[in-house]
């Protein structure tokens, strides 16, 4: 029960902070779920993100994996509810206040200030995620190919992630 509540609260905290889209959960999960609570290993954390990407729906469904790992199905439900609840409440409240919020220059300035922090956090997270890749030149090449496909050729992330999985599988045989 304690665990269930803790999973819910940790995920709710992350859910309230993901300015700039679902991927912004990644640095927070790394700090909280992996480093602080040790609910996932670094390895499982990266795998969970990959699974979240190839699953239809939002990438933040990765929370379901975390919750399941900690406390089975109930944990999965608590984590999923927790991570999506803050933005749900804020969006529904704001939907009726659209004009006032959009014209508030302090709100716009706040988000403008937050996004550079988000960029730095993502880059720092990428360094940690890339650690196992850097040791193997084939994987490094694969990562750069994936980056080119994503940024230069605008290929959908689902296909890039799935394709890289297949390539990795074939390399290992």
């Amino acid at each position, binding site marked *: 029960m304690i665990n269930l509540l803790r999973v819910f609260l940790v995920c709710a905290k992350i859910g309230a902070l993901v300015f700039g889209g*679902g991927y912004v959960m990644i640095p927070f999960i790394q700090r909280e779920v992996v480093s602080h609570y040790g609910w996932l290993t670094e390895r*499982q954390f990266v795998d969970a993100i990959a699974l979240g990407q190839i699953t239809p729906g939002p990438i933040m469904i990765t929370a379901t994996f975390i919750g399941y790992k900690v406390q089975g199905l109930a944990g999965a439900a608590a984590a999923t509810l927790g991570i999506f609840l803050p933005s*749900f409440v804020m969006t529904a409240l704001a939907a009726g*206040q659209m004009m006032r919020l959009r014209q508030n220059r302090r709100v716009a300035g706040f988000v403008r200030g937050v996004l550079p922090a988000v960029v730095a956090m993502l880059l720092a997270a990428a360094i940690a995620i890339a650690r196992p890749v850097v040791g193997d030149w084939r994987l490094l090449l694969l990562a750069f190919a994936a980056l080119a496909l994503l940024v230069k050729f605008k290929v959908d992330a689902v296909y890039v992630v799935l394709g890289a999985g297949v390539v990795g*599988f074939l390399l290992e045989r």
Partner: protein
Amino acid sequence: MSDSAPNDREPRVNPDSPSPIGLPQLTLMMLKVGATGFGLGMVGVLQQEVVTRRSWLSQEEFADGVALANLLPGPIATDVAVYVGYKLRGWRGAALSLIALLAPAFAIMVGLTIAYLRYGRAPHVQGLFAGLNAAVAALVVAVAYRIARSSLKSAAEGGLVCAAFGALLLHANLVVLMLACGVIGALLLAPQRKSET
């Protein structure tokens, strides 16, 4: 901007349709979007369903939802879905939209997690996950690049990225870092007042 009342707290129904859009219809549509859209791509699928196919909201109303989603925390696509649900059927519409949007993903993710925890350590899938790891690293860099390109508009913001990165190397607390940058932004980067009255 089509909102006529400055303070439209009350959920609004489509002015062109005589009866409000049914909750079952809304739920089914969100289930479909949740099962067929991936990540940010869901926004496009949602727009197709809500604006193009069903005309439940106008293009402008939908774009307002996307703008709102960019101001608020949370995944852009789920924020937009909640906005659409709220616009059409108030709180109940918003809640059902979120639940329906997440239901397929939740079911699939539970299945994948069970499979992963059982077979993820098998030797012949190690290569698979090594490949996925390479792609996820690239993906995170690509997302950082996308956000940087679309939102960093001045040298001040570039400086803020460097300062934040430096703070991260010193193991700064993420929440404190994010809020500090937000406050700096609210004080220094707020857009100029235009035609506010």
